[in-house]
């Protein structure tokens, strides 16, 4: 089953890392994956995004036009990607910076206070993306939580490994933000 995803926000918010972790985790779970970043002018200060595909079969195009799952972290990204979520798809949006959420009724949208949780509870805004990741995992079950932690260990340079427990906390907190319906 092919899942087409996009992660979008300001450069520096960790959206490319989120995509990388999902791709790496899915690869470790035996899936086919692709990760395609916006690069160049967009990367430098504007909005950054990456498209991630996870599938049981070989992936055709790494570049998607519509998405099963979108996670957005600023207003321009919401405006850009809300119309591109497939009918019945999932839109996760950061609701402590985006005040006016999505308007579409034919998709499942989840407002997640990832930034507020990271700054208030974890005292570190940098793990905002891991809070969002936790929520995303609970909502989509795209990969296992353990696989993401393995992925983090695999992609984070060793000199940052003391930050692994903080990231695990953030992941757990994001996971618990979502109450199963």
């Amino acid at each position, binding site marked *: 089953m092919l899942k087409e995803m996009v992660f979008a926000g300001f450069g520096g918010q960790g959206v490319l890392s989120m995509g990388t972790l999902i791709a790496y985790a899915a690869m470790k779970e035996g899936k086919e994956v692709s990760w395609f970043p916006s*690069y*160049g002018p967009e990367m430098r200060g504007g909005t950054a995004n990456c498209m991630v595909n996870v599938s049981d079969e070989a992936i055709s195009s790494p570049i998607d*036009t519509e998405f099963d799952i979108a996670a957005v972290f600023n207003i321009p990204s919401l405006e850009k990607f809300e119309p591109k979520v497939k009918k019945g798809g999932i839109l996760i949006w950061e609701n402590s910076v985006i005040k006016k959420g999505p308007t579409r009724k034919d998709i499942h949208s989840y407002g997640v206070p990832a930034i507020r949780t990271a700054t208030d509870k974890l005292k570190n805004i940098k793990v905002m993306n891991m809070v969002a990741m936790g929520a995303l995992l609970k909502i989509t079950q795209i990969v296992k939580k353990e696989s993401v932690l393995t992925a983090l260990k695999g992609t984070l340079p060793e000199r940052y490994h003391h930050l692994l427990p903080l990231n695990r906390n953030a992941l757990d907190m994001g996971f618990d933000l979502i109450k199963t319906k």
Partner: protein
Amino acid sequence: MGEIRLMKGNEALGEAAIRAGLQGYFGYPITPQSEVMEYLAQQEPHHNYVFLQAESEVAAVNMMYGAGGAGARVLTTTSSPGFSLMQEGISYIACAEIPCLFCNVVRGGPGLGTIQPSQSDYFQSTKGGGHGDYHTIVLAPNSVQEMVDFVYLGFNLADKYRTPVTILSDGAIGQMMEKVELPDPVEYKPDKPWATTGKTKDRERNILTSLYIQSEDMEKKNQKLQKKYEKIKQNEIRFDEYKTEDAEIIIVSFGLSSRVSRKSVDIGRAQGMKIGLFRPQTVWPFPYEKLREYADKDRVKFFISIEMNAGQMVEDVKLAVCGKKPVHFYGRMGGIVPDSYEVIEQIKKIKE
């Protein structure tokens, strides 16, 4: 099975070069290729190769000429404007018959253009590029895995035929990450008796040159090159197919646009259209004969070439099809990647 990693195309190409026995890398930074340089610079202390950032692409290509001539396994990577600067040197290298591997991570042109992915250097790469009657073997990867595989293949073909080989990649293949299987490192033992390694008492001087003042000599050289190109055409054509067995409509596409087109095949088939994809992996030599076979089949209604340019490979498709069936073209330019649904819309328009 080799080591599995999640890597960017550019980094994977660098790693593959190291594993394939790279001895010299000469390059100049340019987006969207720079990760190759960064990777090889970073890895240099752990391996036994020379990494050199030249003062320009012109310098880099001449370092390739020199080191390759001395028998080293050499690589340079660049992107479109840089590849243009290298053309003079590639012409010299082709004439002097020196094995060298080039990778052009193509961006949109002409001019300084854009840094987004493009395929607008197809003509330049497949029809010569520099002056004189020559070709380089041109490999067109469409995945991170092929960025790795074609480095091994490219180095080997360069040695086998004593010729420059070009990997014609693009910004997207270079920048994206995929699962990749890295082959085991090889111990490179060059067998190059022609190399300029210093004259010894037991042999004559080795001379590598592209200068033949006498026309008769120059013609002889040309005949030798042409004979070699014929041999390459006979032995080294590579292509890949997807659902062409019963196809009535054949998309011809290479590199990144072939990935987009592969998805179009599935979308089209779900709507009842019998579409197949024919993908040249070598764009020089081009698989003319195989395409001609499809042109001869009654069930095949038409061909459409999907490219990220104004219509370049479509000319080779037309040469292959030779007027037997209609050949259409759809492309986007300037760094825009066509999407799979757009391709289907075009095909529907043609059908009407």
